[in-house]
């Protein structure tokens, strides 16, 4: 068993090494796979703030992923068609600037998380699961019905958005951008876990009545965790849209919400690096098994069943002991 901190470091170095190795061997597709894993990892790290630390089983995180995606899609669409975006009295021009898009994605998904959280957190347990699932589906149908932005067909963005000083069309540069964001968010999530807020949030998951009797409101802790969680997943959505240069209602689908939970559990819930390991494993499986059989999801299902029934703690739980301090 190795300490968790070393594992975190090793996994990130490994991910970076794969991308750099692919660059040297001139295999851009592998870089794209590594980017995909990085972005999914970011989304799952976001979910894990709510799920792992807060104990909130959100089956609707695709909502935030999709909102992040559509924030990118809508802004870039207006920029590429040179049409202003009219929001009542407000007129905004579109933009191709990644920082602006990211900020929009984060704010929009945080707001959505606040609204959904205010409603869903009035309940707990199974109700919470069903309600987040339902609200995720609401966004899915809304996106389908919203023909101004492509409806069911989605929106294509012709050229990847810009980041000052970088050529984002170069796979390795775009990977570097996503990877940096993942590292920053992991740093933030790691600090969060040990901060006063994280301590209280984790206690609210384990012993909510205790948290109340020391004068802290578990509901407010959970609400903020849900908002932070949604914001990070929203950021990942914006990157995912930029990776594919395409957004569609599929980003809101319940399957995606389920897959995000699977990433977290497969890697190891409540571990900092768990979701990253889960995302890497998922993308690898998808790629390797997807080559062998069209029906690889069956095997994912079987693997997941085995993990749930026999190996709680996920991959990280098998190889690393839990770090304290």
């Amino acid at each position, binding site marked *: 068993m190795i300490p968790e901190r070393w594992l975190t470091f090793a996994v990130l170095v490994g991910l970076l090494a794969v991308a750099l190795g692919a660059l040297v061997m001139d295999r851009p597709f592998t870089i794209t796979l590594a980017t995909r894993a990085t972005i999914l990892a970011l989304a799952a790290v976001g979910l894990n703030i709510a*799920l792992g630390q807060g104990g909130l*089983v959100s*089956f609707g995180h695709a909502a935030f992923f999709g909102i992040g995606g559509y924030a990118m899609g809508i802004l870039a669409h207006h920029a590429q068609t040179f049409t202003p975006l009219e929001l009542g009295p407000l007129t905004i021009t579109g933009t191709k600037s990644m920082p602006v898009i990211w900020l929009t994605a984060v704010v929009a998904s945080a707001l959505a998380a606040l609204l959904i959280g205010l*409603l*869903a957190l*009035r*309940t707990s*347990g*199974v*109700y919470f*699961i*069903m*309600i987040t*699932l*339902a*609200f995720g*589906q*609401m966004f899915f*149908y*809304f996106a*389908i*019905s*919203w*023909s*101004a932005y492509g409806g069911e067909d989605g929106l294509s963005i012709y050229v990847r958005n810009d980041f000052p000083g970088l050529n984002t069309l170069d796979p390795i540069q775009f990977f570097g951008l996503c990877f940096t964001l993942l590292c920053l968010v992991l740093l933030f999530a790691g600090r969060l876990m040990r901060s006063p807020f994280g301590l209280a949030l984790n206690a609210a998951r384990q012993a909510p009545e205790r948290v109340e009797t020391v004068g802290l409101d578990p509901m407010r802790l959970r609400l903020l965790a849900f908002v932070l969680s949604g914001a990070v997943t929203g950021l990942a959505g914006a990157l995912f849209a930029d990776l594919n240069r395409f957004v569609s209602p599929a980003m809101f689908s*319940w399957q995606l919400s*389920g897959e995000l*939970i*699977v990433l977290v*559990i497969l890697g190891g*819930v409540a571990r900092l690096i768990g979701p990253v390991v889960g995302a890497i494993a998922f993308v690898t499986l998808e790629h390797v098994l997807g080559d062998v059989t069209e*029906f690889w*999801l*069956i095997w*994912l*299902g*079987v693997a*997941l*069943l085995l*993990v*749930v*029934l026999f190996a*709680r703690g996920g991959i990280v739980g098998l190889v690393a002991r839990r770090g304290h301090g």
Partner: protein
Amino acid sequence: MSAILIIEQVLNGLQFGVMLFLMAAGLTLIFGVMGLINLAHGSLYMIGAFAAAAVAGATGSFLLALAAAMAAAAAAGALVELTVIRRLYAADHLDQVLATFALILIFSEGTRWIFGSFPLYLDVPAALSGPVTLPGGIDYPRYRLALIGAGLAVAVGLWALTQHTRIGIRIRAGENDREMIAALGVDIGRLYTLVFALGAALAGLAGALVGAIQSVQVGMGEPVLILAFVVIVIGGIGSIKGAFIGALLVGLTDTLGGIFLPEFFKLFMEPGAATQTGASLASMAIYILMGLVLIWRPTGLFGARA
């Protein structure tokens, strides 16, 4: 907008509602008795539809197809209960969600493996095809009217089962106190398998009945499953009565919202924008309804108060 159109849409809403009830009743029963959230309930709906389409294709008999749908779904439900689900009763909800999500993957991809990705079609039986003329001169599809009747019949049957039979008494006792009824010598394992199979059969029936007016394809179950969740959140977990009222509310809201909201916006918007806004809002109407119920009563209309 004519009265005929309104009545037609109300009937459509009722038809949609009673089919949702068949799904929601099983889910809420399983949750009430075993405390289990079953995401794979949509797969059982799909299994019912596929079994019906296969048997109808082979024999031409719609009744046989319905029987096959219920039998196949019940068998799949019992099998899953015996192998996987019963290990999950004591587990937390996250484990239940994950394991049943895994079951969806297995069932969906397995079905795609066997039947392929193309949709199958199940024909409305000849005796029920064509319209029927209702009082007031409204032509309405005979089959959809039959669906409403079938749904109501199942609702009455379920009510009678839970209120007036020995097995129903045991089910209700199981909701309240599982140790007690185990102590009284009821085989709780068999009771659970039975309840699960019953819920599965209802889902399979719904899948077959709806399969005749929509196409039968992989992934057909989950959208219905999620709507059934909305129904349960509105009605209150564990309450069959709540599931019934909730299902009708959701069915009517969804159907009528799609018709009336665009018309409503046309009163003060230009037609194109009104249609767009109305359609978008209609797609969210049932979730807004759910949100309002949550603000008013977080445990649903008929749920146990916290």
